[in-house]
Each structure stands twice: as C-alpha cells, then as structure tokens.
C-alpha cells in the first residue's frame, strides 16, 4: 500500500444547512409566490428540532465468523484486530453498526445459531453497544428465523442524539425489501422530520451496483423514491467487501470495508470469487469505518485499514 494514511473523509458538504439556505436564493426565482411561505415553514421546522449533539459511531461489516478457508485463514483474528482498534478510539464511539454477514452461511440451523451466538459474545466483550442487520449468510437459508432468536429484529429504527437510524433487511427473503417491509418503512418515515439527518443501514446496496453478483436490491428504487423529500439521507451498507461511494438524487451510499476478505471491483461478467489471503499482506483491503456526526448534522467518514490501525491515534 503506497498510501500512508488510512484517513479518507467524505464531508457531506452538499447536504449542509448552510448549503440549503444558500440554495434558497437560487430556488426563490423558481418557486416564486410560495417562497415566503416555504421559508417560514422551514424556519419553523428547524426550531422544533432538538439540536444534534455530536457523537461518534463505528461501521463494521462482513465479519463472516465461522468461515474456514483461504480467503481469510482467521476471520476471528481480523475481527479481533478491528475490535482492538475500536476499543482504542478516542473519543470512544457510542455504538457500532454491523451491516450483515456477521457469520458465514451454513445449511444447519444449529450451526448458524452457534455462530451468531459466538459473534454476539465476541462483540459484547468490547463493552460498546452494537446494532446489527442480517446478511444473506446469516438469514437467507431460514428466512431469518434463527437470526431473530439470537440477534433480535430484522428491521427497526432508533433515534440517537438527534439523528434518525433505520436498519433494513434486504436479504432474508431474497435481495429485496419486499412489499411488507416497504409498507412498514413508509409508516416509519411518515412520522419523521425530513430535515433531520437519516442514516439507513442494511447489508446489500440500495441501488444497483452490479446485479449479476447480487450487489443490488431488487426494489430499492421504490424505497429511494419514498425518501425523495428527505434532505440528508445516508446509507451505510456492506456485502460488496470494498469501499464504494455513490450518490443517487438526494441519497449518499457508502459501502464499508469488510473484516473478512476483499472482493474484486464489479464489472466483468465472471463468477465472483475472493482471492486467497496473501502471506505478506494478510490484511489487505480489510478495515472498518469511523463516523463522526458533527453538530451541523454532517458526517465525517474515516476508513481505517486493518493493515494500518496503528494510526488510530491520528483520529483524535
């Protein structure tokens, strides 16, 4: 790796409040008569919101516990290295989001349960709360039955220090959200403030990265359309085992680094396969993401490479 620093930031300058107000002048001409009304409504809705308190959280993904093979000869070892780095973060994260494929897929319900319990115990040892969503390895085989008994709901939302979070399941029935979940989601966002930052987290991307590798959500377009009124939506996902950043209309999508193994870039119509883990660069392409929520509601994303976690102190 020639890049010496592992800190990569994607400031969300496009969606800041200042940008929004700045844009107001330009939009004024277009919206004409309703400008005053709209501006007043905007100011009012801002006043009703409790201010965002800055905080930090961590995005972990694709830990694949239970995997045995050449792509990573110790998935537990690299997860533990990531957890050590997280434990050393200062300021400490409020929680960890884990976006699926916590475990490697298995046809046996019993074995799946063991692996999920083991995952849970491994993360609990760090004493930082965590939220998870399922990956297809965890949940497709039995439609998420075992996952629910061990990890809890397949989809849910929570509010943390002024920021809205929704975890989605786009894997347990297939690579889609499904009509039921879309209806549920619509009900959730109906009550939400469109100016408050909304962070979605799920396993598969909510736009079509590459359908031949199942790197997509069949009905993701419906969910994205439901969010067209929201101003600050960020999606954190996994599944693709590499960093991908992309914008669809008003939504920013960021794939996180896996701790298990990297995967090739999408594009060629060939069978998707990981490489054998290199003896000289065992942690190549592995890592995690630190997300700092600023008081403005902007997100500062920092990707940490496992090969360079000794640089963690640089994050302070």
């Amino acid at each position, binding site marked *: 790796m020639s890049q010496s620093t592992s800190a990569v930031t994607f400031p969300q300058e496009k969606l800041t409040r200042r940008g*929004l107000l700045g*844009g*107001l002048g*330009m*939009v*004024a*001409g*277009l*919206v*004409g*008569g*309703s400008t005053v009304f*709209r501006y007043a409504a*905007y100011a009012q809705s801002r006043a009703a919101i409790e201010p965002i308190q800055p905080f930090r959280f961590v995005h972990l993904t694709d830990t694949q516990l239970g995997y045995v093979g050449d792509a990573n000869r110790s998935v537990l070892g690299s997860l533990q290295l990531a957890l050590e780095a997280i434990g050393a973060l200062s300021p400490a994260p409020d929680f960890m989001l884990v976006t699926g494929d916590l475990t*490697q*897929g*298995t*046809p046996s319900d019993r074995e799946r349960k063991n692996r999920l319990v083991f995952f849970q115990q491994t993360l609990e040892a760090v004493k930082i709360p965590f939220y998870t969503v399922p990956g*297809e*390895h965890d949940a*497709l*085989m039995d*439609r998420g039955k075992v996952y629910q008994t061990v990890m809890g709901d397949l989809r849910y939302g929570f509010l943390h220090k002024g920021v809205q979070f929704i975890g989605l399941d786009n894997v347990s*029935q*297939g*690579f*889609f*959200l*499904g*009509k*039921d979940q879309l209806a549920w989601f619509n009900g959730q966002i109906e009550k939400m403030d*469109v100016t408050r930052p909304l962070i979605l987290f799920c396993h598969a991307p909510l736009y079509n990265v590459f*359908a*031949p*590798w*199942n790197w997509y959500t*069949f*009905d993701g377009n419906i969910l994205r359309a439901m969010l*067209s*009124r929201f*101003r600050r939506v960020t999606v954190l996902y996994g599944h693709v085992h590499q960093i991908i950043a992309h914008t669809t*209309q*008003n939504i920013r999508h960021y794939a996180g680094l896996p701790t298990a193994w990297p995967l090739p870039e999408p594009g060629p*119509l*060939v*069978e*998707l*396969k990981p490489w054998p883990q290199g003896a000289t660069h065992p942690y190549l392409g592995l890592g995690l993401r630190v997300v700092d929520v600023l008081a403005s509601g902007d997100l500062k994303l920092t990707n940490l490479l496992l090969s360079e976690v000794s640089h963690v102190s640089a994050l302070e």
Partner: protein
Amino acid sequence: MSVHWSKWGFLLWSSCIWLTISPGAAVAASSFPLRHRVVPKPVPRVRTEPSIAAGAALYVRGCLSCHGPRGNGEGFWSLPTGGQAPRLDQLDGSAWTPSAVSAVIRQGGGLMPSWGKVLTPGQIQSLAMYVESLNQRVAPVPKTETPEPKSTRELWHRSH
C-alpha cells in the same frame, strides 16, 4: 464574469419561467422540499399481459446471478453454503409442471428467494413462462423450404 449581472439575469429569467409554469408548479412545489423538487413524470397505465419476453427481462434482473445465462446453472454468484443454484434448462417436466414452477418462484425455499414477497402474480407467471421456454426440448422447426442449390454456372453469371 460579473456576479451581479448573472444573479439579476437569472432572477429575471426565472421570473419569466415562473409566469409561464406557475399554475402547474404551485401544485408540484407544495409537497416537495427546496432542493429535491422532483416533478413526477406521468406514467401511462398499460396493462401488460404476462409474456416470455417480460419473463426474460425479469430473469436478467433477478435470476441470472444465481441460475446463470438462460438457466444454464453457471451463475456468477456462488451460494453462501458454497456451490451453485441448480440449472433451470433441464427440468424434469413431470415434476416441474407450470404450476409447480410458479409455486417455487413465489414461495422459494432455502437459498431460493421468496419472490412472491416482491413480484406481482403476473410477473411470476411471466418468469414461469420464460423458465418453461428454456425447457422446450423439441424446438419447433420453422416451416421454410430449403432452396435448391444453384448451379455453379448460374453463380458465375451472378457474380459478374
């Protein structure tokens, strides 16, 4: 470039636009925020009958990854448990009746997704028709007459 000029020019220009489009825009503006005002395009309501062509298009979006091109079993994505999804072009016709194929697409099972949760019955029927078409063991031979071979002499004439 003069900043002032461009700003006022823009406002003037946009007021003209505003006067032109205001009746429709007032309705559209009321329900959208400032930055992401998307005016939905009218979608014509066309009732499409299930068809092999519609099934083929859905297959590429939803099934190709696991079952491979034209159901040849060479998917580009291996299953979480290792191995590949089965091929769909050599189904045993006695077990896989059209209704059984529709049912497995709708309900799924194991690593085969439950497409009924996202697709309409019409879309599932299209997919079942497409899968059936992949299993047409005896391809219907188009009725055309094989032309008699032309004599070399005639060909020679034609090419000059």
